[in-house]
């Protein structure tokens, strides 16, 4: 199945716009240094990002470090138990789904860190020995802006291409096969999709180049946003319910991923005007979807999730396709299965709430 012509055109157009978006933090730094006359690269200060960071971050630093090491795992488990207690999995958490979710939650926590550590501590110093901390002169705000754009726009593209390039879909399918939303499926991914996450290695490289301090805060904030966007406890509901909060809702839903917009991405149908599984690709920022016209904002939640052509494939096929195949006949993950269960169409234009 070839890439649709109109989709290819849009990808090309949006990729060119992305070059400008990636350059924005650099342009902002040029303007800043021109205006202030600062030249921090001439008199390097050790840990300049630390020195130039807002004072309150010194107090928050241990919180963010703990969140990164064990806090998010505890938060995901706590939120998951609460979702389960509230009956939000609605008897859909079958033994097959349970197996996939648990393997996808646990295995990457043991298998990914050694790979990223090897990349950061061995490969980068070998390939770029003189570049360690070469950008440590970047002030905190610039590093924060740069990492936020670099990490999240890269994930937007990684995610979008897995939806729009037919041969890539099956690497991402596992994340969409869950017929429910919640902490149980938030980490549910094919392992090859996870291990080749472009933004993981991009951020690791930027940390190696000296942007580690702002990266700590960006990646923690991003994890919090993406985790809660997957939760079946919709934290954004009050913002739509109370009129006084509508202006905040208007900004929030365009800036970051919310349960409403991200749940729409996981809908199994777009027929109700709420689901938008061929759009709403944003992870931390929904802004990319607004800019590229791949977003749909309705302030409503889909009634059903997953994929229409799901055959409850074995956990090993969902986790390790194409290394292991499904025995389910006609499955996308079987040896002779179709590349994509339904055709790839153009994405809708942004609809305002």
């Amino acid at each position: 199945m070839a890439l649709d012509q109109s989709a290819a055109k849009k990808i090309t157009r949006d990729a060119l716009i992305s070059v400008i978006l990636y350059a924005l933090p650099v342009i902002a730094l040029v303007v800043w240094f021109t205006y202030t006359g600062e030249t921090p690269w001439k008199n390097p200060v050790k840990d300049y990002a630390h020195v130039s960071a807002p004072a309150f971050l010194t107090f928050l630093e241990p919180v963010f470090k703990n969140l990164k090491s064990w806090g998010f795992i505890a938060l995901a488990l706590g939120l998951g138990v609460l979702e389960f207690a509230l009956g939000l999995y609605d008897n859909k958490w079958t033994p097959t789904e349970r197996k996939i979710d648990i393997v996808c939650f646990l295995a990457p926590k043991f298998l990914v860190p050694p790979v990223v550590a090897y990349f950061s501590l061995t490969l980068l110093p070998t390939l770029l020995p003189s570049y360690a901390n070469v950008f440590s002169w970047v002030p905190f705000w610039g590093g924060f802006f740069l990492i936020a754009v670099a990490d999240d726009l890269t994930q937007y593209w990684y995610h979008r291409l897995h939806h729009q390039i037919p041969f890539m879909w099956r690497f991402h399918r596992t994340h969409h096969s869950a017929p429910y939303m919640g902490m149980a499926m938030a980490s549910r991914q094919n392992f090859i999709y996870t291990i080749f996450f472009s933004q993981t290695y991009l951020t690791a490289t930027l940390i190696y180049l000296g942007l580690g301090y702002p990266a700590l805060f960006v990646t923690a904030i991003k994890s919090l946003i993406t985790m809660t966007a997957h939760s079946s406890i919709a934290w954004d509901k009050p913002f739509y319910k109370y009129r006084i909060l509508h202006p905040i809702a208007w900004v929030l839903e365009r800036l970051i991923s919310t349960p409403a917009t991200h749940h729409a991405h996981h809908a199994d149908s777009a027929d109700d005007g709420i689901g938008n599984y061929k759009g709403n690709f944003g992870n931390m920022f929904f802004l990319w979807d607004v800019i590229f016209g791949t977003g749909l904002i309705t302030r409503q939640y889909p009634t059903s999730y997953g994929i229409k052509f799901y055959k409850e494939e074995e956990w090993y096929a969902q986790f390790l396709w194409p290394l292991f195949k499904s025995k389910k006949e006609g499955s996308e993950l079987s040896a002779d299965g179709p590349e994509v269960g339904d055709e790839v169409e153009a994405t809708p234009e942004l609809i305002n709430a």
Partner: protein
Amino acid sequence: MATQDVKILAKKIGVSILVYAIPLAILGGGLSLIKLLIIK
């Protein structure tokens, strides 16, 4: 794993590398240029 699967895997890794390398080139190149652009 069939030859077709190896091809798909190789193409997928290729896309991942491209999605990694393009922003790195823009940002790395841009930050390196700052020193040259701002001569005080």
